């Protein structure tokens, strides 16, 4: 047992039963299907044993938002305990077909994206089709599904002419499934910003980071994805080239989720983790070293901003506020809501959709009360959830930064 694993199992002994996590848990606040992090985490963990059947299934109602980890005064890794418990349950009881599908965002993306995208999107906007999908698969008919793109980001990147020439510092961009299949514009903005800052952007072959598989409890499949990505990214990391991503969940998975949950702590995995950055974290580091261009256009706007759970789990503060705070005229109002509710694939599920909507309500109220027609959020599924629930367009902050640099 290595030291991370040890700290994960021992961390339940750090629980002093104060219930701060349960008081802060946004899911337990709206449903008693989930008794709260303390009960299903450090408490139930004492009754879980590899050789014995899983004692209770309520851990499946943990959305994985990690608010519990964030507020715990004694450092218990509650969310990780829960994720592992769910995986044990899946290993024992199997995984429903629905979860097998939505956990494979790369596969779903590949099937939806391309010339057939308009047809896919039309079908998915057709109420009877959604009803049927709900009946057959258990994906809630009102759950926010993204619009597939007619082209992939990778395809666009390969065919474009780079705007930079000569020897430049290099950076690897990990775009993730959502940028590739649904929101190529996020990737375009990221590439435009990085090139404006003088970087040569490299996009090596990459697969889904595996987070949806991890959060649905299919650890063996997630491990294959992670090993592939590590193999692809390692040469760059070894050459001192940083990996940046616009999806806070992908970067968190590379940094921590996959290594910790899967117990992968080899040198290669660690090196990739240590070389991976959220894009705004990367930009903030540049700024702290005095290397960030600040030739911004003024943007006279006041916009609501939601720091998603998967960003907060990086434990790096609010890099978006730090960097976009440099743009003249731009003012971001930070949401203080715990979670938008969607938690990746959680809110898509028929039995959890209403929980997700109830969890997200304070955030939706905040966005609507802002009176703005645009909101910002770093995480893709959260953007879809916010837009779906409020009707307010929600974009990645990198798009505003690209606008401020005048590179879009």
């Amino acid at each position: 047992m290595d030291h991370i694993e040890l700290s994960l199992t021992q961390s339940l002994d750090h629980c002093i039963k104060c219930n701060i996590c349960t008081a802060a848990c946004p899911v337990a606040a709206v449903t008693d299907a989930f008794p709260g992090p303390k009960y299903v985490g450090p408490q139930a963990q004492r009754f879980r044993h590899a050789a014995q059947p899983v004692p209770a299934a309520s851990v499946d109602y943990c959305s994985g938002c990690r608010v519990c980890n964030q507020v715990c005064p004694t450092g218990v890794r509650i969310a990780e305990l829960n994720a592992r418990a769910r995986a044990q349950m899946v290993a024992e009881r199997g995984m429903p077909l629905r979860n097998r599908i939505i956990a494979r965002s790369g596969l779903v993306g590949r099937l939806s994206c391309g010339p057939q995208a308009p047809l896919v999107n039309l079908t998915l906007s057709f109420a009877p089709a959604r009803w049927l999908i709900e009946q057959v698969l258990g994906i809630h008919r009102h759950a926010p599904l993204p619009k597939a793109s007619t082209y992939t980001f990778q395809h666009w990147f390969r065919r474009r002419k780079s705007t930079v020439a000569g020897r430049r510092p290099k950076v690897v961009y990990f775009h993730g499934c959502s940028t590739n299949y649904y929101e190529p514009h996020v990737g375009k903005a990221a590439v435009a910003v990085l090139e404006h800052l003088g970087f040569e952007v490299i996009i090596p072959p990459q697969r889904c980071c595996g987070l949806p598989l991890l959060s649905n409890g299919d650890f063996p499949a997630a491990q294959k994805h992670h090993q592939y990505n590590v193999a692809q990214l390692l040469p760059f990391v070894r050459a001192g080239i940083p990996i940046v991503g616009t999806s806070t969940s992908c970067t968190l998975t590379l940094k921590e989720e996959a290594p910790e949950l899967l117990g992968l702590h080899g040198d290669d995995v660690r090196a990739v983790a240590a070389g991976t950055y959220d894009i705004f974290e990367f930009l903030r580091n540049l700024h702290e070293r005095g290397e960030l261009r600040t030739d911004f256009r003024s943007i006279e706007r006041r916009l609501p901003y939601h720091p998603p759970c998967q960003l907060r789990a990086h434990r790096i503060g609010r890099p978006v506020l730090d960097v976009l705070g440099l743009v003249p005229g731009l003012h971001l109002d930070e949401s203080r809501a715990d979670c938008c509710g969607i938690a990746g694939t959680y809110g898509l599920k028929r039995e959890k959709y209403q929980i997700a909507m109830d969890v997200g309500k304070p955030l939706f109220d905040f966005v609507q009360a802002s009176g703005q027609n645009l909101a910002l959020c770093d995480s893709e599924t959260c953007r879809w959830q916010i837009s779906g629930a409020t009707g307010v367009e929600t974009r990645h902050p990198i798009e505003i930064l690209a606008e401020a640099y005048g590179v879009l």
Partner: protein
Amino acid sequence: MYDTIVIGAGLAGLMAAIGRAERGEKVMVLAKGHGTTHWTTGCLDLFAEVDDPIAGIIQLTDQRPHHPYALVGLTMIEQGVARFRAICEAAGYPMVGNFNRNLLLPTALGALRPTAFAPATMINGDARQLRDGRPTLIASFGVLRDFFPPLIAANLRAQGIAAEAALLALPPTGRQHDFSPVILARMFDQPDFRARVGEQLAAFVRKGGYARIGMPAILGLKHPTEVVRDLQNRAGALIFEIPTLPTSVAGMRLYHILENALLSLGGRMQLGGFVQRGEPLKETLVAVFSEAAAREQRHTARRWVLATGGILGGGIRATPEGHLRETALDLPLQTPDSRSGWFAARFLAEQGHPVFQSGVRVDRSLRPLDASGRLVYENVMVAGSALAGFDPVREGCLEGVAIATGWAAGQQ
């Protein structure tokens, strides 16, 4: 780069941060999580060993010149408490009481606990009022764990208070189990829910002629003052809250009020960030590193306030070898020489256990000193229970010292 980074999000840290932010500084509070505010009563204990807290403090500062109260002085204590009360008042949650006479409020066991200032929602529980001979009802829901009205009432009766107990029926909620104090508090924020409870209370008052009703401190998380007023009107009796076991709703309210005050001044909060070490440059603390995914995060500031708490709050931890360590910056601690000196022979020893006086020794500007009295950092101030030379729980001055030293750290 911040002007000030405060490590710790308890009363001390938040008061220091508010003070700094009010001066126009760029401030961040960096904390590992929610802290002792969520475990405590939500009252302000100034000095509980004597009836008159201020007189007790004046005497204390003469006798124990290294006590945190003595270091910051009476003015800072009064100003800090005044500012704290003003912030609560502005949030619609007045803290009532005075500097010269402790209140005596019932605990969840029915004991009477001295405290200087309490939220208005608790004030009708003062034992001096309860002893007026008119009957008091202690009421709660069976589903709320760790709060037993019959036990509380029996113990109050043993102290000369005419108390009786009742269990209320929980209005329909759509929830079958897991009724924590916070869950119930959110329910009380809903007018329909408290109308149903109010009807039951009114029925008890009609039958038993109760003048006052004591209930667990779950009467609203967001609008407690309004909830209590509403329930009093419906019940036709005075209502007072009794703090529950953790998680303490009354403590959470104070946390939220101070957090809001800081954020509205433009301050920043970062939770989930365990500070693990500092980066010194001679006698200046240049940066600290907090734990984060895959690698540490480095933070820089001109000035620092360490308000990580004591043994209870986790700012001071024991190693398996039996040494105490200050967790964030590894500052030298004033503590018994060896583990054998930690505890008094008797568990309930009147003078308390020496280990609980452990903490960071500081100069009059609250800057950390080492064992030989030399300054460790010129730009670090220490506030709250991380300080040496007092026993916050035994002396009944946990919140008072936190607010006084936190406020002082925010002013200097």
